[in-house]
């Protein structure tokens, strides 16, 4: 075994470790280009094999990064910025590369049974596997990119791969949802491109590090031109940020997400919710934390944090009232996205590192739990032919193992120790306490309670005495559904649930090349208090209480639940449906653009 | 303003005048066909005059040959598009297009009718 490290040494620890970066970008592109030549059958094998090689590469990058303890930079074509384009790997990027490769591989293995020529036909099979590679190529480009226009092209690859996943099955409603998703995403890209163009006009370069240096230099001498440069840059970042908000579907700009993620086939919904939406968030992470030197001084952090809280509350409440399981899970995605944006108000001073760790943990834990939930929803849909909760009473009795996986994934979202959700809430709580901004904490708790509520609603439906339609189809599909369809969702849910037990040293991967992160220490501190009985109860207690309340409240069956919530629900559903009108969303996009522009420059 | 520039100024402005005349025809004439007629006539002539006007500015021989090629292409495409537009205009009004290609209109309108029986417009 000693021979292997010696041969691989220069790459893993030595001077040539930066050369690991370009294969990560080249591999998915090569797979994407060879797939149409191999046809539908070959595309599946090609995708899975290149994903496994890609996972190995991503892990190698992580090891090389920790060994080098400095960012790995690779100038493409030998041309350095500002003329050429550089790839740069730092801690969070390495974490996201590993997460993306691993999750896509697992979802691919899960979908291998469904998306093959015998079951789905050649069109959908070739399309699915190519789109999987396209999403992977786009995300890798996003995580490694340092050049604003290179990131724009990576986002377009991601959007061109995500939109068609929605209408793989070819029903009319999905084409409508796909068109709305595409047009809204294109409006976002156009705003982002406009921002990148202004940045080029102001600084003459598109490289994030160089713009940051120019801003630092401009900030010191408070000359006339200096703040003109600063204001133009902030206006450009406001444009880019608004475009990315539209692509991340942060409420109220969420009109395209529920029909798209709700209507797509299960593996596609898992990829869309777990990974695609996180790509544009990661770019916001880069913009507001890496490019802008003094985010805390701007009140745009408060704006983004406020929108995050709005998303947590409205998203969870809407999830409570959905009739279909996949739409419930899609709205829960909207709510969980809200947690990500609590990073921006808390990302200042010493607590900035903890808040950034919390946001990255939320990305990881939500990706795992949500992918598992969507795959399970697909399994239920395949078993019973529909996913209307009203007619699924007692499905838990017919598919007990499936129910167990839903429970695990749900608890990870609710945030019971030692799950990823708990880590996120405690880290955010710690950061807020450190900053003295106590008002973020109730939003975190309320979000957890509401997630517990809709999880309890699913469990109540699952354990209720079987309704006619479940028993009839149970004999047909559920019993014969192959158990290997549960392996991947169970694995994902397990990882999300026990994310807290991962040795804290592994979290130090995120600290590389990011000053003041200190994530390993923060996670270790949080986990000590988690496993004590007192720590367990004060976080799990309220969630349990709410769950119990929901189960009792639901005792009288789904229709009773519908009637009782009707009074409050209809108003809220009306507001939410109004928010998802095309014109309202467009007006809100413009309002957000103007408010962000004013909030940064003022 | 030596001779060549003077020549160019005169011819290009003449060409521009004919383009303007074509535009007046487009605005003033009552129905589509006569508009089409005015436009294609005036613009072809205008294009020819502008091309002649630009001749002295172009380099001998390839610049001039490119300009002539440009003009030939302009006339060919202008003529073909005018024919197609005229056919389409007749189709819209339901009348038989003039000249020998009556069968084209009949076949297209039948094809149109099969695809869209209720094609109310």
């Amino acid at each position, binding site marked *: 075994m000693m021979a292997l490290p010696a041969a691989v040494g220069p790459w893993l620890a030595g001077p040539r470790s930066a050369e690991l970066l370009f294969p990560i970008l080249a591999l998915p592109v090569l797979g994407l280009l060879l797939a149409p030549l191999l046809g539908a059958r070959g595309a599946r094998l090609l995708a899975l094999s290149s994903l496994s090689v890609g996972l190995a590469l991503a892990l190698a990058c992580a090891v090389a990064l920790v060994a080098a303890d400095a960012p790995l930079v690779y100038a493409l074509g030998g041309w350095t910025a500002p003329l050429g384009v550089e790839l740069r790997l730092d801690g969070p990027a390495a974490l996201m590369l590993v997460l993306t490769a691993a999750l896509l591989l697992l979802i691919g293995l899960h979908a291998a049974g469904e998306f093959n020529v015998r079951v789905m036909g050649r069109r959908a099979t070739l399309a699915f596997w190519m789109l999987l590679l396209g999403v992977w190529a786009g995300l890798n480009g996003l995580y490694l990119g340092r050049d604003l226009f290179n990131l724009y092209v990576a986002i377009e690859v991601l959007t061109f791969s995500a939109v068609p996943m929605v209408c793989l*099955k070819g029903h009319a409603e999905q084409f409508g949802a796909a068109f709305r998703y595409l047009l809204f995403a294109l409006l976002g890209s156009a705003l982002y*491109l406009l921002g990148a163009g202004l940045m080029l006009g102001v600084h003459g370069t598109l490289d994030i590090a160089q713009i940051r240096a120019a801003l630092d230099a401009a900030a010191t001498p408070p000359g006339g031109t200096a703040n003109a440069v600063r204001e133009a840059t902030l206006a450009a970042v406001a444009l880019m940020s608004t475009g990315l908000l539209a692509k991340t579907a942060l409420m109220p700009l969420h009109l395209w997400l529920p029909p798209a993620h709700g209507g797509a086939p299960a593996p596609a919904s898992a990829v869309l919710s777990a990974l695609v939406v996180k790509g544009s968030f990661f770019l916001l992470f880069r913009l507001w934390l890496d490019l802008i030197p003094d985010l805390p001084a701007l009140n745009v952090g408060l704006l983004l944090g406020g929108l995050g809280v709005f998303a947590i509350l409205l998203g969870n409440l809407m999830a409570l009232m959905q009739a279909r399981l996949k739409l419930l899970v899609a709205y829960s995605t909207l709510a969980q996205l809200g947690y990500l944006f609590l990073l921006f108000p808390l990302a200042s001073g010493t607590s900035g590192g903890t808040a950034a760790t919390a946001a990255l943990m939320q990305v990881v834990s939500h990706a795992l739990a949500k992918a598992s939930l969507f795959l399970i929803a697909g399994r239920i849909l395949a078993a019973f032919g529909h996913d209307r909760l009203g007619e699924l009473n007692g499905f838990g009795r017919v598919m007990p193992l499936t129910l167990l996986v839903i429970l695990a994934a749900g608890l990870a979202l609710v945030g019971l120790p030692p799950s990823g959700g708990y880590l996120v809430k405690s880290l955010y709580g710690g950061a807020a306490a450190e900053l003295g901004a106590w008002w973020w904490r109730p939003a975190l708790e309320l979000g957890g309670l509401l997630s517990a509520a809709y999880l309890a609603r699913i469990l109540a439906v699952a354990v209720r005495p079987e309704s006619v339609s479940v028993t009839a189809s149970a004999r047909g599909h559920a019993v014969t559904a192959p158990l290997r369809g549960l392996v991947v969702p169970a694995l994902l849910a397990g990882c999300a649930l026990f994310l807290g037990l991962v040795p804290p040293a592994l979290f130090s991967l995120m600290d590389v090349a990011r000053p003041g992160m200190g994530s390993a220490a923060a996670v270790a501190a949080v986990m000590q208090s988690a496993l004590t009985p007192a720590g367990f109860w004060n976080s799990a207690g309220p969630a349990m209480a709410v769950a119990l309340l929901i189960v009792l409240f639901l005792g009288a069956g789904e229709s009773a639940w*519908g009637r009782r919530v009707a009074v409050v629900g209809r108003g809220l559903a009306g507001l939410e449906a109004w928010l998802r009108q095309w014109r309202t969303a467009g007006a809100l996009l413009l309002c957000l653009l103007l408010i962000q522009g004013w909030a940064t420059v003022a | 303003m030596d001779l060549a520039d003077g020549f160019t100024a005169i011819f290009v402005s003449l060409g521009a005048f004919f383009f303007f005349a074509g535009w007046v025809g487009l605005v003033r004439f009552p129905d589509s066909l006569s508009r089409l007629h005015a436009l294609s006539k005036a613009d072809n002539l205008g294009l020819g005059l502008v091309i002649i006007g630009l001749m002295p500015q172009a380099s001998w021989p390839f610049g001039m040959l490119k300009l002539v090629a440009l003009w030939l292409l302009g006339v060919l495409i202008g003529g073909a598009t005018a024919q197609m537009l005229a056919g389409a205009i007749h189709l819209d009004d339901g009348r038989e297009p003039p000249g020998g290609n009556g069968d084209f209109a009949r076949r297209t309108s039948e094809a149109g009718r099969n695809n869209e029986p209720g094609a109310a417009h």
Partner: protein
Amino acid sequence: MTEAQIYGICGAGLVGIGLYGAILGRSALRRLLAFNLMGSGVFLVFGAIARRGGIVDGTLSDPVPQALVITGLVVAFAATALAVALLIRLAAVDREEAPPSAEPGSADAPSVATTPSAGSPSAGTSP
């Protein structure tokens, strides 16, 4: 008023007009067309910036923004082609009398929420 400034303002105006049309367009095709207007406005802003760079260095215009615009134009065309294909398929699928036969077992029936309270975002709100 150099031409860079004239076309810079023209680009900014086109972005405004494009956004207006994209939001208030009455048919999906008009919204798509308005998006392309906005795209050409964004590229004109790039062009103005390229021309400003060119004036300073005595050439016609800075080649880097030009290259970005060419790449952007091709991406915008591909996006519009996809959007048009989606619209044509949406119209064709709507026109077919029988909805495509739902495959056994995975009939992801886009059912409209039945219970009164649930406001599931079915096809009510059109694209």
